[in-house]
């Protein structure tokens, strides 16, 4: 999967667990876990919700590897 992310890092910065982040973005804990592991690429809507909760831009959390190479 070419989409890498720093979600775990941003979540740690906020001091919340996966379940709490899930609640804030309207997703389940399992989905947060999948995104953090890079096993699931979220939709644009969900990525924007995550960025909003973390107080950063989408690009600061998600990185498309092929594009950069």
């Amino acid at each position: 999967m070419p989409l890498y992310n720093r979600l775990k890092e941003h979540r740690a910065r906020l001091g919340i667990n996966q379940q709490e982040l899930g609640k804030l973005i309207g997703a389940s804990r399992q989905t947060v876990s999948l995104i953090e592991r890079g096993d699931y690429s979220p939709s644009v809507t969900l990525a924007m919700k995550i960025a909003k909760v973390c107080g950063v831009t989408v690009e600061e959390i998600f990185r498309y590897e092929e594009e950069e190479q």
Partner: protein
Amino acid sequence: MSERKEEIRKEDKKWGWKFGLILLASGIGGGFLGGGVGWLTDWLSEGGEGLAWVAEVAVPVVSAVLLAVVVLGNLIALPILWGRCKKLARTEELEDETVWEKLDRRLNVILAVTSLSLCVVMTLMGVAVSGFRSILYGRDDLILSMAVTFGAVLGLFTELALVLIFQRLVVNFYKEHNPEKRGSVYQMNFNKVWLKSCDEAEKLHIYRAGYTAYRVGYYTCLALWLVGVLGAMAGLLNWATILFVGIIWAAMQAGYLIAAAKQKGDGINITI
């Protein structure tokens, strides 16, 4: 455009050969299968009464015994599996993601065991009660036939109770830890309500699994149709088998086509 057409033609040609070879191999295989069925028919016609006893008595009795084994196995295994989940949820730190992953796997095992067991038990129960007709004909094995029939019915109800109890426990556990989840296992439209409360990743997961199930069902129907046709030709099965396979196949295809037609032009909306 002509380049694209050439590309398509080449691709068709490449796969066309393989398709032809598969058809040829299927034809040869079918020939052998047909010959085998002919041999089986002759062999069975020589069997006579012994085979009738197998079909009317032995198969239902064996099914009832297997049903009892499955139900008893579930009666022992499910409380143990659930106990392990509860222990993990209680003693370990649920903040730890690896613990959650372990817990998810264990809960999924319970759901898989209950779902598959119910299919197996319902099938075995159906086969077991097929021996019931012996009662109507007043055969000597009336008591055995009644014991098998009522035992099978009791087994089915026990399994239904087990499925309901343990699936409710798992669903309610998920609901407890995922407040957005909706639906009660007692609801007739539980699947619909639950799906509605799932997020995009969960919906995608369910749709993918559903499509895999559709494909597996399609090829299973194809295989069963072949068995039904050959069985009917050999006189072992009748047209009802082919009709049932056809109904399941048509229902599955119609369900797929209707769902596909209902999708809007912008595709499946899985956003939360």
